Structure formats: structure tokens, C-alpha cells
């Protein structure tokens, strides 16, 4: 059968690829779609890990990830965007191609860093993939200049951390996972509230309007 290492490598690689595609998406719908895919892969990884290691809670975790990150959050975001006529063209400091190249560099560096710190090969892939996801999420946070872009950046980072947790330790204690996901839901709710307010106040979600508070 497939070893844990192979599964981790496979899912990790797939997630990194999807994330790399994600960072170059400039339209809201494609960004959300890529995020859904990313989260689906994460849920799938959880299921696979649960099946292979025989850990029941992991199934529940996978299910939760599925419900929250694949269904609820993206749906919520899309509905709100449609209902309030939010501009679906996203903005960034860098062009999509530059972002992709930057992302590739980040992925390479992350794997290098992982290799420097960890000796075991299975852990290297796990750490490398999760670190890449986290860094790619940070890239989104740093380069996207609209509120949705930044929010998705944060969500991608969270996915990376989730992957790290699953791959390295087989997930956290169950109630902690629930707590994390609950926090995430509240986070998205708050983001949406702030987005709606920005839309009402400024008419746009561009962060260049959020630069008044200087010293």
C-alpha cells in the first residue's frame, strides 16, 4: 500500500502546485475556486491520514475542514460579493507572472530551509510543503492590495499551518481543532463585516484607502 510518506508527498506537492496557481489569480471567482481546491486537498489528506493511521478523530477533522473551508467560507464570501456588488477584479502590487516566479522561489527556499532543519525525509516534505503554503499565504498578504486578497492570503496561511499540524503530529487534540476552525469562522465573519463597511464607506476594497493613520 501507499506509505504515509508517499501520501504526504503527494498531497503536499498537489497543494503547493494549487497554491502556486492561486497566487496568480486576479479574479475573485478563480481565487475562491483555487482556495476551495486547496482546502479539498487538505480535507482529503486528513481523510487519507485517518484511514492509514486508523485515527478516528482525523475523519471528523477532515469532515470539518470540508464543511468549513470548502463549503461554508467560500460560499459565504461569494454570496456576499455578489449581493453587495463588490468589485470582482482584485488588485496587487505585483503582476501575476511576477507573483508566480516569486512563489516558485519561495517554494524552493522553503524546501531548502526544511531540509536544513529536519533530517528525516518524510518530515522534510511535510515541513517543506507546509512552510511553502504558509509563505505563499504571506506572499498574498504582502502583495495583495484589496481586502479580499488579504483575507484569502490569511486563509491560505491557515491551510499551511493545518497541513503542518496534520503531517507532523497527526493533528492536534480534537477539541483544539474545533476551536481553531470556530475561530476561523468568526474571523471570516468579521472580515465580511469590515468588507461591507468598507464598501459602504469607500465604495471599494482597495487598501490604498486604508492609509490615513500615520504618525
Amino acid at each position, binding site marked *: 500500500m501507499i506509505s504515509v510518506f508517499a501520501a504526504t508527498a503527494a498531497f503536499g506537492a498537489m497543494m503547493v502546485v494549487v497554491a502556486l496557481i492561486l497566487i496568480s489569480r486576479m479574479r475573485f471567482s478563480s481565487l475562491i475556486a483555487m482556495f476551495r481546491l486547496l482546502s479539498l486537498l487538505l480535507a482529503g489528506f486528513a481523510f487519507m491520514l485517518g484511514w492509514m493511521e486508523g485515527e478516528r478523530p482525523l475523519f471528523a477533522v477532515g469532515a470539518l475542514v470540508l464543511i468549513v473551508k470548502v463549503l461554508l467560507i467560500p460560499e459565504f464570501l461569494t454570496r456576499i460579493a455578489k449581493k453587495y456588488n463588490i468589485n470582482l477584479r482584485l488588485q496587487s*502590487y505585483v503582476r501575476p507572472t511576477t507573483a508566480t516566479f516569486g512563489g516558485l522561489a519561495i517554494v524552493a527556499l522553503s524546501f531548502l530551509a526544511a531540509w536544513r532543519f529536519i533530517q528525516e525525509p518524510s518530515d522534510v516534505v511535510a515541513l517543506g510543503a507546509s512552510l511553502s503554503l504558509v509563505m505563499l499565504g*504571506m506572499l498574498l*498578504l*504582502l*502583495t*495583495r*492590495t484589496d481586502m479580499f486578497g*488579504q483575507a484569502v492570503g490569511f486563509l491560505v496561511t491557515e491551510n499551511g499551518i493545518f497541513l503542518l499540524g496534520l503531517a507532523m503530529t497527526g493533528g492536534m487534540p480534537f477539541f483544539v481543532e474545533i476551536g481553531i476552525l470556530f475561530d476561523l469562522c468568526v474571523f471570516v465573519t468579521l472580515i465580511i463585516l469590515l468588507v461591507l463597511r468598507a464598501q459602504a464607506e469607500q465604495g471599494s476594497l482597495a*487598501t490604498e484607502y*486604508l*492609509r*490615513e*493613520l*500615520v*504618525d
Partner: protein
Amino acid sequence: MDPLLISRLFLFALATPAFAALLGLLLRRVSWSNTLTQVLFALSGLVGLGAVALLALEMFAGSLSSLQIGGLGVLQPLGVPFLGIIYAGVLLTSFYSIAALAKYKEIYVLPWLNVASALFLIGMQAVVLAPSVLTFLLAWELMSIAAYFLVIADRTEDSLRAGFLYFVMTHLGFLALAAGLLILSGGNPLLSWAELAQGAATLGALPLSLAFALLFAGFGSKAGLVPLHQWLPYAHPQAPSGSSALLSGVMLKVAVFGFLQSLTFFPSLLFPWMLVVLLLGLVSAFFGALHAAVENDAKRLLAWSSIENMGLIFAGIALYFLTSGTAALAPLAPLFALFVMLHILNHFLFKSGLFMAAGVIQSATHTRDLDSLGGLARRWPLFSGVVLALSLAAAALPPLGTFFGEWALVQALALGLGAGDPASRFTALLVLSSVALVGGLAIFAFVKFFSLVFLGRARTEAAEHAGALSWILATPVAICALLSLGVGLVAFPLISGIPVGKLFGAEVVVAPGAGIDPTLVALILAAPALALWLITRVLRTKIRITDTWDCGAPLTPRMQYTSTGFAAPIRFFFRTLLGARREIITTPVVASNPWVTKKHLDWQIHSIWEVWLYKPLGHGIVRVAHSVRRLQSGVVQFYLLLVLLTLILTLFIAL
């Protein structure tokens, strides 16, 4: 005398101001609340003074070497005279403030001002009594911050600005003191003085030097030594007059006490450092006297004079330590010690008296500007005699006490010209010339002060119609003058017999015959005056009243000397050091006639320390602050970048 009783008296003196201020706060609607508070302050001063006298008797009789004060600490011999000065100052200024503050009820919020005064008084006493590093710093900070409130008491913009500079400098001084003391203690925050001295003996040369520099900077900044002195001329005039008297007369002495006490912690005193102290003392004395000579504001003049006198005191301390170490010069050391102690006492007396007098003048004429005063001797003949005595004391002229202190100094320096190796002789020469220069400038300054305020005619309406003088305001001033005279008459012979060096931790006695007989001096001065008076009486010469020669144009008071005019020669000679700048703008009255013009003169002098040190430093720091401000750019992505970079850098560096 029972030591326990004496210690209880000290505790009473320490606690009463707090009680007085609280009472004043609770009874603030009552009209006599301020009087009550001041009377209680005076009572605490009186009790404290009594305790000091009793203790001094015990100590010099040899039966006590130190006094345990309740749970608060141990009083060493060094602290006794300083406590005496504190209590005497409290007694005099509180008595003065009964009437003085009442006149300013609208300007000062009296109940709270008295709270600040009480904390100030308690702080000063606690500084002298403090037995450990922590309590010392606690008391010092309490004293300093209470003094801040005294400076900003009238809440005008000038006061707030003066208070700001004072606060920054006192904070800097506190940090320096804390650093110096903690270096000596090796980082242990809870040592007592004895333990500190023990531990300091084990430190190396570099930490000791650093600690000394920091302590000197801290105490020097509070005492008003150059270059950390700039707050003093701004801050002292702003406080209420009674408080100014305490600030100049007493707080500066507490700083000297702190410095002397900290010197006892050093196992051996570094010779070069004492030279630095000497140099800075003389430079401060010079700048103080110079600015006093050219200053137009009465109180600011007195503040600069305080800087001058503190400089001399520190120079004296340095000379004591420089000479006591060398065998050839050791006999000179007691004279320097004598000078220091006498000058501390004398300066307290004449400076407090002068500040209170300036307060009296200000409350009657509503101005501090020398150019607006004049002719007060006609209205207040006795008071002007009192202020004359105090001015002579400030100028160090006989028969007042200051002269005898400085006589000891000059004697010692003159003896130093003929003893020791060439280097020390040359130093003695330099110091002697500096002291002479400072003395000359001081005389100039106080002649100006006295004559412009009291002699001649009033220069403005305000001075013309100065109010009546209340005896209660004048009495403390008169007491100061009388004491100053008294010190002159008795101090020298009295102190010559006392082991002065005991206060400095050494056993030295003033050599007899190195002194001067004050009664003889007084007689020499008094005899001609008496003779003249007798002659005029006997010959019954008439006084003729007539017009004085006026060149045909009527004389007005405005044609008298002004402060600016009087100080012109000094200002001219030292124009570079005063940063003097003159600008004359000439505009013709009628465009077609260039010969009839209107002239506008703009004269400025600065403290060069302010122009070349304080302002550039301040502006530089503000400029740096403005560039750091750019970190808060408003761009959230930049903030995130900072977080990420910090993470990555820390991971690389710390691992």
C-alpha cells in the same frame, strides 16, 4: 541628652509638613488655611533646628558618632550641618510665605502648592537621612518632582517651558545617579551605604571612573554645574519667591551633600577626576558670574549667581581632595574644607535672603525687571539697608560672612603658590586668577543689582508707587542679613577651633594664625564711618538742596543708568562668550529726507551653552524622531513585512 529624644524630634520635623499640607487641603475653604500650613511648616523647621543643635552638641562633645532615626536610617556627621540648613531654610521661608503667598491667592492654587512644598521638604530631609541606595533615590526623585510642581506653580507658558527643561535635566540627573550607584553596588539594588562602600572597594578602575563620572554628572546637574546648568536660570525665577529661596538656598546644598556622601564610597579618589571637578567648578563659577553681571531680570541674576557660588563650592571640594592627598600641600586642605563649609552656610543665608527680598520687591512693584525699578531706598530705607548687607554678602565683601570664607580660600591658594611642585603652583596660580575674576564679576553683578533697584529714582510708574512694606515679609530677610553679619563676626574663630575635617571623614584641624580676626576687620570698616558721622554731627554742616547740573535739559529718571548700560563694558569684553548680537534697523521718517531717521536697536545675548549644546542636541533628537516616524507609514502590507522579516532574521540569528 537622650538620643531617642533627638531622633523623635527629627521624626516630628519629617512628618509635620505632610500633616500641615493635609490640614491645609482639608480646610481650604477657610481663609487662614495657608497661614496655618505655613506656621506648621515653620514649627517643623524650628523643631528640626533644635534637634540639629542638640545633636551637634552631642557629636562635637564626642558622645555620639551617629544617630539612629527610628526605622528610617542613620544620620552621619556629614548630614548634620545640611539638615541644619534645610530646617533653617524651612523656618525662614515658611514665615515669609505666610504673607507672601496670601498676596498671590488668585495665581497659585495654594492648598495644592503647599502639598507640593510639603513633599519637597520631606524629600529633602529624606535625601539626607536615607540609609540605602533605594531610599536615597526614592527621596531624591520625590524631592525633584515636588520641585517641578513648585516651578510650574503659576502655570504660565514661561513656567511650563522652564519646568519642562527642569524636568528633562532632573530626570537625566536621576538616571545618572541611579547608574553610578548601581555600578558601585555591582547590580545589587538593596545595599546600604556601608555595604556599598565595602563592595566598591573590590571594583576595578574603569567601573570606578565611570561611576564617579555618572555621580558627578547627576549631582552636578542638580547643583547647577556647567554644562548641565541651563535649567537653573529658567526654573528658579518661575517658582514662588519662598520656594525659589528654598530651591536656590537649600536644594542646591542637598546636591552638594549627595556629592560629598558619594565621595566616601570610593576607596581611593582618582586624581584626574578631581581636576575635572575643579575645572568644571571654576568654569561654572565664571559663567555664573558673567551672566549675573549682564542679566536684567532680578531673579534670573540671583539664579546665575547661585551657579557661580556652587561652582566655587565644588572647586573648593576638589581643591580639598587634591591637596589632602599630597604631603607638601596637606596643611592647605583644612582651609579649603573651611571655605566649603562656610560658603555653603553663607550662600544659603544671603541667597535665601536675596530671593525673599526680590519677592518682596516683585510683589510691591509687579516687576522683576531691573530696568523698571529704582528709588526704593527712599520709600524703604531700612529694608534697603538690609538688602545692601545681603548684596555685600553676595559680593563677598567684609564685614559679612562670605568674605571670611573666601579669605580662607584665597589664603590657601596664596600659600599654594609657594608650596609643592611647579605643576601644583601653576594650578594654584590659575585657580587664584579665576577666583579673582569671578569675584570681580560677582561684585559687579551685585552692585548693579542693589543700585538699580534701590538707588536713584524710580524708572517707571510701578516702582514709583510701590506699596508699603509689611514687616512680616521683611523680617525673614532681615534675619538672613543679621545672621550673615553674625557669621562674619563669629564663624571664623568658632570654626577654627572645631575639627572641620571630621565632616569630610578625616581628622584635620585648621592651623591657628591662618585665619583673620573678623572683629578687627569690622572695626577697621566701622571706625571711619563712625568718625565721619561724628564729624558731621559736631560741625553741624548744613545740607543744601538745589538743582543739580543738567546741561539745560530737565533730568528724567529715564536718563539714569539702565541695567543694559551699566553692564555694557562687561558685555563688550565678553561679547563672544555671551553670543552677543546687535542689530540696528534705520528707517527714515520721511522718504525724501535721509537725515531724520528712526532707529530700532535689537540686542541679544545668549547662553552659549544653550546655543551650541542644548538646542542642537534637542533639534537633532527631534529630527531623528521624525525619521523614525516614517515606520508608521500606514501601509498594512509594510507592517506585515516587518513581522515577517523579524521572524526570518530572528530565526537566522538566534539559531
